[in-house]
């Protein structure tokens, strides 16, 4: 029996693995609820495990793998995957925007089916990356520590200044602890408690 066909693993292992070193490496995982437009994970199923097909731009696509990088996959609606295309000018990293805080993406769950192996792997792709024209940074707030975002996991989205944010653990109630979206610079701090769901 022929043994081979390892190439089918290239995208699943190398490309997806390498992408894990992409967005938001220096910020804490947010426990702040995401809004409907950012950071939440929609899903798309039935994609194949094939390697990315190259620079597809300007025409309708249905899967992030059809774009040169996941962040270029852009849709009018991510729940129904309406009007999706590969955005040629999408930023690859926060530094591609005028400020890292302008960089915003969202999550999309993709089911990679590998029919030969009878496997279905759900992986989260960072898609819809763009530079927000209007964005806030910590320095826009009266105190940088008053800066907080709805989501910092896939770029920055829903950021605002909130003068009521706790500044130290001493402001949290007994049983709570101070959790921050970023420690350097320090912002997005809020009191968290352990809940059993």
């Amino acid at each position, binding site marked *: 029996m022929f043994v*081979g066909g390892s190439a089918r693993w290239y995208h699943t292992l*190398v*490309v997806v693995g390498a992408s894990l070193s992409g967005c938001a490496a220096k910020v804490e995982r947010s426990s702040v609820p995401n809004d409907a437009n950012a950071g939440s994970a929609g899903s798309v199923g039935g994609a194949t495990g094939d390697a990315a097909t190259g620079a597809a731009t300007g025409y309708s696509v249905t899967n992030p793998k059809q774009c040169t990088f996941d962040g270029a996959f852009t849709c009018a609606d991510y729940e129904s995957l309406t009007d999706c295309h590969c955005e040629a000018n999408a930023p690859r990293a926060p530094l591609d925007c005028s400020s890292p805080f302008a960089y915003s993406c969202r999550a999309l769950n993709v089911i990679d089916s590998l029919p030969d192996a009878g496997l279905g792997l759900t992986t989260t792709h960072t898609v819809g990356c763009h530079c927000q024209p209007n964005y806030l940074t910590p320095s826009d707030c009266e105190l940088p520590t008053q800066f907080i975002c709805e989501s910092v996991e896939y770029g920055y989205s829903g950021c605002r200044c909130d003068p009521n944010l706790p500044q130290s653990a001493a402001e949290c109630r007994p049983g709570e602890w101070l959790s921050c979206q970023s420690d350097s610079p320090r912002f997005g701090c809020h009191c968290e408690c352990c809940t059993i769901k």
Partner: protein
Amino acid sequence: MRRQVILPVVDAAIDALDEASRNTVGLLWSVRAQNELKTSSVFASLYRELMAFGAPLAVLEMCAQAVSDEVRHAILCADVAARYGGPRAPLQAVAPAEAPSFSVCSAQVSRALFAALHSAINETLATSYLAACLEQARTETVSTALRHIIEDEVRHARIGWAVLASDKLSDADRRVISNTLPSLMEICVSAWLAETAYDVEHAIVPGQGSLCQTELHTLVEDALGNVVIPGLSHVRLDPAPTQAWFARWPRT
């Protein structure tokens, strides 16, 4: 424990094997169980190194998960061994694994090489190997176990590729890593091919979760040529030294 796997209670394909074959396969899965436990220990060591490396939280989470994944694999492999009729082989205690030492490297490069060796290269080979075994599997028990393990191995391999793609590595670091990779390939591939010394000694029973040496050699060649080496360019490493090593590698 993240996931449970339910092996078939009855597997006629196993029952149809003669006793000698069942013993051979059972022993093979017992050895695999012990190896999985050792791998758990290595991931525990890698986790500490990746913490020092400054790996993203998502990667640390995957590495921490891998520690328990491999323990679960060990238990699963021991269960498979038992299904082949032999007594459940007790898993032996495993000495804590130490991070390998790469004397010519900075600490950061050393950590990346550890991730490259153990995760990017080894787990990529493991994924390809187990997938090939799955395609040949003739019993539901083996198929179920392999499918379960592969799904985890995919994530384990991604850890290494994530580290190699990291901006925590400078251009100078990348040059050192690129030049060291042939040695890592040699170590890893030799270990994989040496594993089959056991298989050759104990005749392979087709379709029970292992490959014969010829198939394994082909598999390793295929995985190196089509996944690992192309992947080096993707993570901004120079593939040339490894390509030169690969060109000298004996073909099947």
